């Protein structure tokens, strides 16, 4: 099978994501009404949409936290629900809540994460990461004393403990300081070069647009727009997004 841009798709399925007819109902409330989406390895997909559009639900299903009502999700050629832990091993998630234990120090948080990820002899790796995210000075301080930017950097550090092949980010640009933003960009670019697949959901049109290879808009559980970044400009995309927003209001 050869893709439109000529690349060989068979080699590419190393860390690709394939979503087919994904549906999720919470009781009688539809959250996702049939999503078809592909993300190739080395690709960054930016997902936009208003609150309640289903972005977080989609990410949570990809992360293996939520079981879909129907439809399939395939990661690196394997159906997600066949081997959750296998996929989790290869996945890195930066969630909305920073998922840090406030009573513990930065070092302790990372050491625990390393243990959970199955890393042997984690202490050098932990020290390395703390240096990389600029928290080596605050390493033994309790996370409770951190600013939100510092917390975000630590959460990012957690992500960096292993090199994830699939990266999921839910509102990564919220509460980031300048240093954290730069770190995130570097991390995403570095991972991309290594062939990792990234899905990023955000409200921040500018940042999302800037980092993405592909763009998609979700509206009330449906995919209403999808394009490669080269095919559009930021202003055009902005107006398109606003338009979809207004159509939504009328519905």
């Amino acid at each position: 099978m050869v893709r439109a841009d000529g690349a060989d798709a068979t080699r590419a399925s190393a860390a690709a994501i394939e979503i087919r007819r994904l549906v999720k109902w919470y009781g009688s409330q539809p959250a996702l009404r049939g999503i078809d989406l592909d993300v190739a390895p080395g690709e960054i997909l930016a997902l936009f949409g208003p609150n309640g559009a289903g972005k977080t639900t989609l990410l949570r299903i990809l992360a293996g936290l939520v079981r879909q009502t129907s439809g399939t999700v395939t990661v690196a050629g394997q159906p997600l629900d066949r081997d959750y832990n296998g996929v989790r091993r290869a996945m890195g998630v930066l969630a909305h809540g920073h998922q840090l234990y406030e009573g513990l120090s930065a070092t302790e948080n990372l050491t625990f994460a390393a243990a959970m990820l199955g890393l042997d002899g984690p202490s050098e790796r932990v020290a390395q990461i703390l240096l990389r995210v600029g928290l080596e000075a605050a390493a033994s301080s309790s996370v409770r004393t951190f600013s939100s930017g510092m917390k975000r950097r630590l959460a990012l550090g957690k992500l960096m403990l292993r090199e994830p092949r699939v990266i999921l980010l839910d509102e990564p640009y919220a509460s980031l300081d300048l240093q954290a933003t730069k770190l995130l960009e570097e991390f995403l670019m570095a991972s991309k070069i290594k062939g990792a697949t990234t899905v990023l959901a955000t409200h921040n049109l500018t940042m999302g647009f800037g980092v993405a290879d592909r763009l998609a808009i979700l509206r009330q559980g449906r995919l209403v727009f999808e394009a490669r970044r080269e095919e559009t400009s930021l202003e055009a995309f902005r107006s398109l997004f606003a338009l979809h927003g207004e159509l939504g209001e009328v519905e």
Partner: protein
Amino acid sequence: MTFARRVMAIARKDLLAEWRNRESFTAMFSFAFLVLFLFNFALGGDQTLIRGASSGLLWLAFTFTSVLGLARSVQGELENDCLDGLLLYPVEREAIYLGKLLGNFMVILLVEVVIFPLFAVLYNMDLWAKLPRLLLIAVPGTLGFAVAGTLLSTMTASLRAREAMLPFLLFPLTIPLILSAVRGTEVVLLGEPFELAVPWLKLMAAFDTVFLVASLLTFEYLVEE
């Protein structure tokens, strides 16, 4: 890294977090002490009555205190989406359950170990020689409570009426434990031959085993959405 080490890592993380601020332990300890203190007034200051009812009073206090500890432990994971964070690791759900169970068990047991001598002082009872056997009764009872409690607190954590629901679900189920612990403690406190406590120990062991197996089998269903 083996399964057991992952379990220990989770338990250690919980205990470390608890040790840092000791909020949970202090709250539980104060509550248990208060309850025992209040019994004096509830039972009209009658020391004989209190001594006669002592095993029941102790376990009533421990039961309520355990619920406090269990609820707080789950709260800690719900803050900042830490439970989601735990679930995202490639770690078996059973390991998460066992780690949390171990953490809960140790904290509740620690509270009991501190309360026993305090109770003895408050009500002028000679407990020192009996402490090892009291602990022998307390361990399976507390373990059973932690086993059922860890499972149920996970269930009730996301509910609207969670403070009321956890005890309402937990207490009827753990009545065998409460009965056994009270009778067993009574045997020790009254200085009766320890063989009389053995059937109760067996009952607690049965409860612990059944519930541990059932929890290990069903925990993963509780945490997936």
